[in-house]
C-alpha cells in the first residue's frame, strides 16, 4: 500500500437544476445552505455575501452589523467555475497570513438540460499548519465520510424539495 498523502478533499454532487441556477444558489444564496454553526462572527449570522469578481471577498454579516471577510475570490466565471481562498484556521478563526490559506474550487458541469454536476475541491490543506495537531486529537476517529453516505438521500427528494 502506498502512503501517498493527499492534501486535498474532493466531493461531488448532482443537482437537478441548470448550471446557472446551481451557480447562483452557490454564490448568492450561501446563507441558505451553509452550516450556520460554521462562521466566525461573535453574534448571530444574518447573511453571507459573495462579491462577484476576482479579488472580491466572501463575507459574513452578523445581525449586529459586524462583518467578517473570510475568503478572497480567485475565480468567478458563471455558470461554470467559482474559486476562493479559505482564510480560516482549523479552529475557525480568521487567518490573516495568505501563506497559510487553502483554496476551494467549485466547477459546475452540465449533465443534461436541467441537471448539473457540481464538483468541489478544497486543496492545499497542508497550509493550515497551526492547529493541525489539536484537530487530530479532537476529531479522534473522525466523521463518517463519503458521498455514499447520503447517496440515498440525494437521489430521493430531500426535505423542502417536494413541490
Amino acid at each position: 500500500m502506498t502512503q501517498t498523502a493527499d492534501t486535498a478533499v474532493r466531493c461531488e454532487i448532482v443537482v437537478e437544476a441548470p448550471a446557472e441556477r446551481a451557480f447562483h444558489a452557490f454564490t448568492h444564496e450561501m446563507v441558505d445552505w451553509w452550516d450556520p454553526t460554521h462562521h466566525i462572527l461573535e453574534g448571530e449570522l444574518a447573511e453571507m455575501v459573495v462579491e462577484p469578481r476576482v479579488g472580491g471577498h466572501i463575507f459574513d454579516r452578523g445581525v449586529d452589523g459586524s462583518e467578517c471577510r473570510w475568503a478572497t475570490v480567485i475565480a468567478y466565471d458563471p455558470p461554470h467555475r467559482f474559486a476562493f481562498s479559505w482564510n480560516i484556521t482549523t479552529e475557525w478563526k480568521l487567518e490573516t497570513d495568505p501563506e497559510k490559506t487553502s483554496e476551494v474550487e467549485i466547477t459546475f458541469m452540465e449533465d443534461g438540460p436541467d441537471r448539473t454536476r457540481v464538483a468541489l475541491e478544497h486543496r492545499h490543506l497542508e497550509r493550515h499548519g497551526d492547529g493541525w495537531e489539536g484537530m487530530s486529537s479532537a476529531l479522534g476517529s473522525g466523521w463518517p465520510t463519503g458521498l455514499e453516505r447520503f447517496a440515498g438521500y440525494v437521489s430521493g427528494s430531500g426535505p423542502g424539495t417536494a413541490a
Partner: protein
Amino acid sequence: MANHQPIPADGLAALADPTRREIFERILDRPQAVGELARELPVSRPAVSQHLKVLKDAGLVADTADGARRIYRADPQGLEALRTYFDGFWNRALVAFKDVAERPSKENR
C-alpha cells in the same frame, strides 16, 4: 555553514515557516532522505534535519530506517484528520446546497 532556523518550542507553528513548508511539500511528493532534501534546497543538511524534527514532533512526518539512512514521508494520520474534517464539512454543505439549488430561486418566488 550551519544555518539553524529558530525552532518553535511547541510542535505546531511547524508549517508556518516557509522552508519547513517547502520541505514538507517535497516529502508529500515522495518520501525521501535528509541528504536528498538538502541537495535540492538552499539550506544545510543540519538545518534540514532540524526542520524534519519539528515536522515529526508535530505529527506531520514519520521516518523509517532504510539501511543507514532514514526515509521521511508524510504521516497519513496527521493529514487524514484534516481531510476527514473538511470531507465531512463539505459533504454536509453540498447536501444542503443541493436542496437550495433545486428549489425556485428567491427572486422567482
